């Protein structure tokens, strides 16, 4: 094995002494948007390797629930709630549950060290991953919504609202998932919290609200996915009240900003111990 001895290096050992006083030039800092884009792209590529089976699971789960509910629910407001709830459940499964697991495992295995030793803003890592997980939900959510509309005979005309529902509900749930994953002291706990969050979104989102008892109804109001479900459900009506739709989406956006800020703080805390 050949190793260049110090003496033959350009500059040599003396030069080292001479230069010792001058601090080395710092490398560039990675700026927020380019590095967010790089993290997003890298995370999105993981779908090809690791995520596709789970995306199918998310979609099949929601479609299965709608088929089950078809026997109980005839149509009208209840059918709208079931279809909207099942579609947003795909977002909860991937963005909340899987992202909580991902960050929990990354933190426990020391994988965060990779990012923490790169000059990248914490927000870029969290937002890039959250954005990618929200994007993973697009095909499943669309398939579920279309299938549900056909199954329950709902109009397909206003499905374009998913363009707003998916990113905003995605931001709220992915932020929550990232924060849970990064704050949980153990990866099993992150998985558990993610699963619980998804179960809550399932029970409180898919079951029609009129049939829920009072306390459970209150819990439903606290869950961010509820506002995504309601915004989506309102658009099935013949004359939707768009102000309420916007109001629900604004709640999602607000929760998204807050939870992503908490997740960024949690990342910073988890990265440097």
């Amino acid at each position: 094995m050949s190793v260049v001895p110090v003496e033959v290096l350009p500059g040599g050992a003396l030069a080292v002494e001479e230069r010792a006083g001058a601090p080395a030039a710092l490398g560039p800092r990675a700026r927020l948007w380019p590095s967010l884009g790089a993290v997003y792209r890298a995370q999105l590529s993981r779908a090809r390797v690791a995520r596709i089976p789970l995306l199918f699971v998310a979609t099949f789960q929601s479609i299965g629930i709608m088929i089950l509910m078809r026997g109980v629910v005839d149509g009208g407001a209840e059918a709208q709630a079931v279809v909207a709830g099942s579609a947003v459940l795909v977002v909860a499964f991937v963005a909340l549950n899987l992202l909580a697991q991902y960050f929990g495992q990354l933190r426990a295995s020391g994988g965060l060290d990779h990012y923490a030793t790169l000059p990248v803003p914490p927000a870029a890592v969290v937002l890039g991953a959250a954005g990618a997980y929200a994007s993973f939900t697009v095909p499943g959510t669309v398939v579920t919504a279309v299938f549900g509309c056909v199954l329950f005979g709902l109009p397909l005309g206003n499905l374009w609202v998913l363009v707003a529902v998916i990113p905003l509900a995605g931001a709220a749930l992915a932020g929550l998932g990232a924060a849970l994953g990064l704050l949980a002291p153990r990866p099993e706990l992150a998985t558990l919290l993610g699963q619980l969050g998804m179960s809550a979104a399932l029970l409180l989102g898919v079951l029609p609200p009129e049939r829920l008892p009072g306390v459970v109804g209150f819990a439903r109001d606290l869950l961010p996915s509820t506002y995504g479900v309601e915004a989506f459900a309102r658009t099935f009506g013949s004359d939707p009240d768009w102000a309420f739709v916007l109001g629900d989406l604004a709640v999602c956006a607000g929760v998204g900003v807050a939870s992503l800020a908490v997740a960024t703080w949690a990342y910073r805390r988890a990265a440097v111990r």
Partner: protein
Amino acid sequence: MRANDAVGLEVRRGEIFGLLGPNGAGKSTLVRQLTGLMRPDDGTVEILGHDIVRHPERAARILAYLGQESTALDDLTVSLAAETTGRLRGLDVRRARDERDAVLEELGLTALAPRPIRKLSGGQRRLACFAAALVGERPLLVLDEPTTGMDPVARRAVWAAVDRRRAEHGTTVLLVTHNVIEAETVLDRVAVLDQGRVIACDTPGGLKEKVAGEVRVELVWRERAPLDVPEVAALRSRALESGRRWTLRLAPEEARAVVATVTGGAAFVALDDFTLATPSLEDVYLALGGDAQGLVKA
């Protein structure tokens, strides 16, 4: 609990400096403090003129770190792992791709570029992570057991890449290892760590001079040591026993006498194998009072 205590080290620019010690010696803690991942309770860390305790965020702009874990990169292809890491070191898309291509070519990874890192063998995975560490040139490379699991070809690629950067840019390398053979061949200087303390710091040659007057004798018995032979029984207190194997560090004339004893008479019947060797860094480590379990010879 203190993982390390009063560690005082100075690494010179452009040298390959090693931290040698078994698992749990405090190497990783020291590296975490150097890379800004952990704040020391007290003391200072200065890298190339920058105070890392006061400005931990500067560490990421001075050094490239290859940790032992690859979970952040596992699901990416070799190519995307290298490119993304370069982007996150502040390179624009074009430079990140150019450097990625150059580094993958240099390390002989071009053919593996489209493969996900998770699907590679342990050594190839390590090499892919090393490639990512090299994209976006840094004056200091901190490499935590970079060659674990690598075949000789990959090892040679790693050390050739390190040599090239040292010759062309005066890159400094801090290498964490528990591989004594590698430490002897690639390091300019080495600090030996044991239980969070530096027990010695010198060139590998300088360290070996500390035990230059000694020879290592290894005796492997067929079943058990023939303690009924008085000369063998007398040696027992000085031997490090590990199953059927005895390791002794002796003065050359003593070693000659021991070899004469065990290769003749009753002791020879019980002897399976023996070796005589000049001291290695492992012997230095033992002579300094370290516990050699956990050191690797490969």
